[in-house]
C-alpha cells in the first residue's frame, strides 16, 4: 500500500496503519504501526545533510540507562540494536527536504524488506493516501485539518482563493442505505444545487460562481469492492482549485491494514 502525506509518498506493507502524525509540509513526524511488533517512524525537515542528520538522530537515542549500538554507512543507512532494534535511512528529497525513515522491531523481526520497499519507492508526490483515502491535491493547498474517525477519514485543505475537503467514507453500502448517490450527496451537502455529471464510477455536482457565492464542486467516487466512497468537495473563486476527476488517486485495494 501507499502512504501519501505532506508532499511525499512511499510503499509500505499492507498491515501497517498510521498511528501518529504531526507537523506541516516543511517539518513533521509520523508513525506507522503494524499488527505485530514492527513500527515505522518518518521524520521530515526543511533541509539538511542526510548523514549528519542520521548521526544526530542515532546519538540522541542513547541514554545513561539504555546504550544504543549502531552502525551508520556513508550513504546514510543505519542499523541499531538495544532495547529496540531498528534499520533506517536518511535522504534528501527532490524538493530539498530531508527525510529520515526507520523501521523498528524486535531482534527476530524482518526489518530490512519493508525498509527497502520504502526507500525504493520514496518520492515527492501530490498524493494524499491514508486509511483508504487516495487523492491527488494541488501543491498550493495546505492541510488545515486531518480527522481520522471510525470508518471515515477527512482531510481539509486551504489555499488562497479556495478550500477543499477530501473525505473517505467506509461502510458506504450501509451509509447510503436505500438512497441513491445523488440524493445522498445533495442531502449531505445541504441541498447543494447545480449540474449533475454522471459517471460509471461516481457522480459530480457543480455550480458556477455567482454574485455572492464562490463556485462549488462535489465529486464522489464509489469503490464498491472496498465498500467505501471518496468525496472531493471544493469551493473557491479560482477554477483551478476546484476538484477534477483526475484528482482521485489509485484505489488502495487491501483489507489488511
Amino acid at each position, binding site marked *: 500500500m501507499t502512504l501519501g502525506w505532506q508532499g511525499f509518498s512511499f510503499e509500505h506493507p499492507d498491515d501497517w496503519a498510521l498511528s501518529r502524525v504531526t507537523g506541516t509540509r516543511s517539518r513533521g513526524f509520523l508513525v506507522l504501526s503494524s499488527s505485530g511488533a514492527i513500527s515505522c517512524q518518518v521524520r521530515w525537515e526543511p533541509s539538511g545533510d542526510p548523514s549528519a542528520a542520521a548521526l544526530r538522530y542515532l546519538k540522541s537515542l542513547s541514554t545513561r540507562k539504555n546504550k544504543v549500538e549502531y552502525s551508520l554507512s556513508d550513504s546514510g543507512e543505519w542499523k541499531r540494536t538495544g532495547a529496540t532494534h531498528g534499520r533506517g535511512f536518511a535522504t534528501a528529497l527532490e524538493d530539498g527536504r530531508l527525510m529520515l525513515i526507520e523501521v523498528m522491531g524486535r531482534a527476530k523481526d524482518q526489518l530490512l524488506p519493508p525498509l527497502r520497499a520504502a526507500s525504493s519507492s520514496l518520492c515527492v508526490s501530490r498524493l494524499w493516501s491514508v*486509511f*483508504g483515502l487516495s487523492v491527488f491535491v494541488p501543491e498550493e493547498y495546505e492541510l488545515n485539518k486531518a480527522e481520522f474517525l471510525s*470508518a471515515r477519514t477527512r482531510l481539509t485543505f486551504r489555499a488562497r482563493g479556495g478550500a477543499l475537503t477530501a473525505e473517505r467514507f*467506509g*461502510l458506504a453500502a*450501509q451509509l447510503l442505505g436505500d438512497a441513491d448517490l445523488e440524493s445522498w450527496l445533495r442531502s449531505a451537502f445541504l441541498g447543494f444545487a447545480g449540474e449533475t455529471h454522471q459517471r460509471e464510477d461516481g457522480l459530480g455536482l457543480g455550480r458556477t460562481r455567482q454574485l455572492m457565492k464562490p463556485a462549488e464542486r462535489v465529486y464522489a467516487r464509489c469503490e464498491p469492492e472496498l465498500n467505501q466512497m471518496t468525496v472531493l468537495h471544493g469551493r473557491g473563486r479560482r477554477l483551478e482549485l476546484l476538484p477534477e476527476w483526475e484528482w482521485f488517486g489509485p484505489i488502495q485495494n487491501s483489507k*489488511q491494514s
Partner: protein
Amino acid sequence: MAKPSGWRGILATALRMPMERKFELDEVGLRVWEALDGKTTVAAISSLLQREFKLSRAEAEASLGAFLKTLAARGLIVEP
C-alpha cells in the same frame, strides 16, 4: 431491551417510568451485538467486521472498541 434493577427499578415503578429501555442499533452494531455471545473473542468479532463490511483492521478495531465501551457504559455488557 434492558430492565432497570435496584433503586432505578423502584424509582421507575414509583414514578411510573418505562420499565424497559430500548436501544436501536444500525446494521453493524446489530451484527456485533449478535456476536457478543460470551464465547467469541473481540479479535474474532473484529475479523468478522473486516470480512463482512470490508473494513480495514485499524478501523474495525477502533469502531469495535468504541462500540464496546458504549455498551459497557450503559451496562449492557460486562467485562469478563
